């Protein structure tokens, strides 16, 4: 499995679009502060602003990880590299495992780097505005950890989703439609606001609120459980579909 993970690493790192997406996502916390830096209005910030920045970055990281996972798997079909890939690794379950595994590891690196950028850039911004903060405080570490977890699970979801629907245009379009439209619209259309709890973004939101004192006890764990369950179901579906698909 180590060899397969290394092969997947080489694929991702030799794909310019993947490196670009990950680089922009990791730098995003610093970019997100630019409007505030140039704003003529006096900033309304306090120590909790850092947690808000971390949670805000999570949305971008999750979508970047979702796209990276999709591109890693659907790209194999789009460019027909799935043929040499399967000739080198004919056991498809191992290939899917390696693909999901490396995308998860890549997401850890991207999200961890983004968290460091967020704490350093956000911390500098807060200090400049006279707000004292502790970058290693429990709530900061807890939130950063939750952001990394959400990013990792979205990366795996993306790769698994693309194994089930290997058409790159369809799966990217479908995933973005789901994230930006369906997840918001479905609870409204079905008149069931609680439905949100069972969907990826709702589950991620609860997980990201792990350090929020107003959140209900166990809510973060419940969010994590829903996200893990969605990932696991899609991963199993990915293996089943990959094993039964004829590569043409």
């Amino acid at each position: 499995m180590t060899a397969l993970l290394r092969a997947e690493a080489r694929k991702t790192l030799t794909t310019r679009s993947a490196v670009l997406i990950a680089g922009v996502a990791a730098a995003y916390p610093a970019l997100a502060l630019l409007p505030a830096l140039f704003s003529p209005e006096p900033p309304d910030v306090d120590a909790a602003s850092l947690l808000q920045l971390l949670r805000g970055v999570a949305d971008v990281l999750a979508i970047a990880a979702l796209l990276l996972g999709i591109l890693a798997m659907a790209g194999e079909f789009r460019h027909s590299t799935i043929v040499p890939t399967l000739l080198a690794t004919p056991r498809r379950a191992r290939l899917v495992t390696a693909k999901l595994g490396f995308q998860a590891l890549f997401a850890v690196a991207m999200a961890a780097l983004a968290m460091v950028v967020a704490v350093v850039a956000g911390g500098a911004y807060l200090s400049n505005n006279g707000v004292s903060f502790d970058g290693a405080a429990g709530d900061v570490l807890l939130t950063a950890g939750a952001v990394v977890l959400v990013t990792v699970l979205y990366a795996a979801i993306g790769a698994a989703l693309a194994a089930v629907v290997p058409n790159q245009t369809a799966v990217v379009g479908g995933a973005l439609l789901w994230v930006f439209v369906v997840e918001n619209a479905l609870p409204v259309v079905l008149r069931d606001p609680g439905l949100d709890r069972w969907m990826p973004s709702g589950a991620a939101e609860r997980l990201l609120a792990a350090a929020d004192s107003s959140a209900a006890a166990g809510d973060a764990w419940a969010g994590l459980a829903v996200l893990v369950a969605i990932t696991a179901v899609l991963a199993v579906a990915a293996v089943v579909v990959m094993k039964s698909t004829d590569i043409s």
Partner: protein
Amino acid sequence: MEPIVVEQLTKRFGPVTAVDGLSFTVPAGRVTGFLGPNGAGKTTTLRILLGLAHPTSGRATFAGTAYADLAHPASRVGAVLEATSFHPGRRARDHLRILTTAARIPASRVDETLERVGLAGAGDRRVGGFSLGMRQRLGLAAALLGDPEILVLDEPTNGLDPDGVRWLRGLIRQMAAEGRTVLVSSHLLSEVAQTVDDVVILANGRLVSQGPLADVARRAGAEFTVLLRTPQADKARLALGAAGLRVTVQDDGALVVTGSSPDVVGRAVADAHLTLYEMRPLDRTLEDVFLQLTHSRQGSAR
């Protein structure tokens, strides 16, 4: 057991039967041409053999072992299926490094194979800028990475210029001289006739003929076509017909007897005391044999 064994292989895509009860073997250390017109089922058979597609029934194995169950598949079997299986933004060397990493092949093989296929100077170029011929060569480099004892090549001359085709023929003969088993598909017998020892000929997903090329051609020769010119065309047609020969009349009045060798036709002519102006077997190239074999099967399937 032979290195490649296909047993009662059938593959259906909905109502279409692409491969229909196909059985053949490929002997060790020889170059076997896998021939048939477009749509005969060659690529489908090779994809099943390489574990990329699932058979509806039957098996295609390497000496009894499915490709996915081989211990080190890339070191046993090298395959080239299409010239477009590359990420255009990736450098040629990176493409091969990914494969050596996944298949646990020494990285030193990357430069060795690039050298062997004539791409030593192009290893750091992105594949998007490669010609079709260069992509074919890169595909061959990928197939050779594991120094495999069996090579499976699907239409490898596609996109190659005449120099490239000659180079490929040399490479295939060299592989065979090294004791490797080569299965090379083509829809043109003339393309591989100079390279192959044996042929497996398909039409409509079924086996038409198999064996050493010379034997297959000789067997097909039983269907020789003989042309006759005689001033007694009507009498000749009746006499040859009565002798059980198939006779057709050309626009210019010449008679064409199919399905019988010249000696059989000659005897029938003598028995009927016919006057002849001309009698000769029509020239038959290997391609004619191939077309006859595949078309008769296609015709019978319609």
